[in-house]
């Protein structure tokens, strides 16, 4: 049986992905790489959101926007990974709890 794909399906998927991403960031205690991945997830959810609304509203802007997001996300990830590499070089670990220099 077929379901018609509606905007709410897209938005639900996006919300699920966003929630998973946020949960990953907040609950994850171990690994900075995992945080970066969760960040990607959050960005993807936003992209899906944009693509979905763009499709259903017949407006191409949102899809173009999502292309930009993908590009920026790639660049951001490259910088993030570079920082993680440097962090590992300095601390010998990429555990999140090791990054606590801002502790008051």
């Amino acid at each position, binding site marked *: 049986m077929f379901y018609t794909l509606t905007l709410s399906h897209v938005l639900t998927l996006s919300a699920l992905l966003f929630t998973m991403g*946020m949960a990953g*960031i*907040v*609950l994850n205690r171990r690994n900075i790489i995992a*945080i970066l991945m969760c960040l990607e997830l959050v960005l993807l959810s936003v992209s899906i959101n944009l693509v979905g609304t763009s499709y259903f509203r017949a407006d191409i802007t949102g899809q173009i926007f999502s292309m930009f997001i993908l590009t920026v996300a790639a660049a951001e990830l490259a910088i993030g990974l570079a920082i993680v590499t440097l962090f590992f070089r300095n601390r010998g670990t990429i555990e999140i709890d090791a*990054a*606590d220099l801002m*502790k008051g």
Partner: protein
Amino acid sequence: MQALVPQLTTLAVLLPAIGALLGALTFLIWPTLKAELAHGHDDHHGHDDHAPEAPTASSKWAHYVAMSLTTGSVLAATVISWTLFIGLNNGTAEPVTTHWFTWFSAGPWAVTFGTMLDKLSATMLIVVTSVSACVHVYSWGYMAEDASKRRFFIYLSAFTFAMLMLVTAPNLVQMFLGWEGVGVCSYLLIGFWFHKASANAAAIKAFIVNRVADAAMLVGLFALAATFGTLTYSEIFAKVDAVSATNSYAISFIALFLFIGAMGKSAQFGLHTWLPDAMEGPTPVSALIHAATMVTAGVFLLCRMSPLYEAAPQVLHIVGYVGAITAIFAATVGLTQTDIKRVIAYSTCSQLGYMFFAIGVSAYPAAMFHLTTHAFFKALLFLGAGSVIHGMHHEQNIFNYAKSGYVLRKVLPITYGLMWLGSLALAGIPPFAGYFSKDLVLESAFAAPGGWGLPLYAIGTLAAMLTAIYGFRIIFMSFHNKPKVDEAHAKPTKAKSKKEAHHDDHHHTPHESPWIMLVPMLPLAFGAVLSGWLLHNMGTLEWWDGSIVIHHAHSALHDAHHIPEFFKKLPLILAISGITLAFYLFAEYRGIPKRISQLLPIPYAISLNKWYIDEIYQVLWVNPTASVARFFAEWGDKKGIDGLLNGGAATVRDFGQWLRGAQTGYVYHYAYAMLLALTLGLGYLLWKTM
């Protein structure tokens, strides 16, 4: 001449101030030198203990510029002062009051600045400037090795200015400014060697004791202002008769409190404790401030206020007895002190007592006369003592001079001679200066109407004998050693001192002082020898041209010449026997004083410990004050004020401590917080729109 008198007076007063200010300007050109912050040479160490690095050319300039400016200005002031004095004496100049400016005015009140020149202030002018000039020149030699001598000279000149303002002020406000000014300079100069704890303590003591007296003086000044409505001398004197007819208690009150103020400055019994301690200062300071000038400010003030005191005869009795007690007290203490400067300090105290009891019997001219002659011979004695101390490398104990193994009268022949002149003048031997003035003081006391001055005469005469004894004790103990006797009797001591000398790398042989120190003593010696004879007119009321007023019933000074011949000669006889006694006790048979001290242990202990005045004050005033201060420090300051502030600070700190827990440093905590805030915010907006 007369046309220039106001300008000359102003110039004489201001010159030392200009010198001091210009001297202080050298600190702008050559800021404080390193050596000035380090420990200079002091009294208790050899000269070379802190051998300063070779002074640079500019540092030398810094000192010599300041020294030349201050010394030059004071010398110029001296010349002007003598011109004025001689002019007044010969009648070519008239007393004159100048007005500089009005400080402030409120209603009928106007506090003005200016000068007042009459015979009284002219006499003080020559005394202050002459001694100050001699001391300035002397200090070129005495302070030659001090690293911060320019500061010393600036203080000296500032002191001279303050003292000149004190004596030439036309009103009591300006006089009081000078009065406090000399107090400050005295404090600065006593504590000049600030790295010496004892000098600091002595400076603070001098300041505090004078504060006590000045508080009384202020009360007197307020009462004076309230009663007379003015603090200008001439206006006060014009009103004395009218006020005394209606309110004689007020006059007695004012006179008494002004006298308490004078007691502090002039180190009278009860408020004298600071003067011997003030000997911690450099010796030229002792000569200038604590012998010749500042300590006579009280005597000057009472003479200046003579119309007022003449209206308060009861207070004059108090003045007389305080003076007599001081004279005998200081003389007994002077007998046993071992520090050469302290003996002379007690002698100063004693001589000031003479001046006050002369005032007590209304013989103001005698007091001023004695003040003048005393300034010369006492400054000479102090500078002579400074020369001995300089020559003996900062040894002040007269017993150690005896133990040193040197015959000082052969090593320091010029100083020795000058000290003889000063001591003869002090003892009152004719024709030296002290004879004329001291005899006039004692004769006036004898001639006081109704015979109330007889006890004063008796005390003063006894003190005159003691003066001769302790005065010559210094001479004989310091200068008259017999090397042979020393070797025979004091061999262990000498061996010990030699061992010490060997221990101390900086042992020097004693030497006569340089000419720069001896020459300024010559004018003082001249004064010590001749001033009594040259200035004997000062002993008459007529000479003062109305600057001193004596009630016609107080005829002591007038009758002084008519007392029995025996009582005129008695002080002289006792003085001569005192000198003879001193010669036998302290030069010929040195064992006797020790035997006497063993036979009379209690009087000896009382004298040696200065009548235990310091100890009594310690128990009576210092300890209770310290306890109260400690109580307030502990409960008021530490627990009260500090507690309040620290408590407030601790509260804020604890709150911060609690709050910092929020700052975990973990990225995901911040992300969580952001998420939470975003969710709540969005939820709120959503809820609002629904």
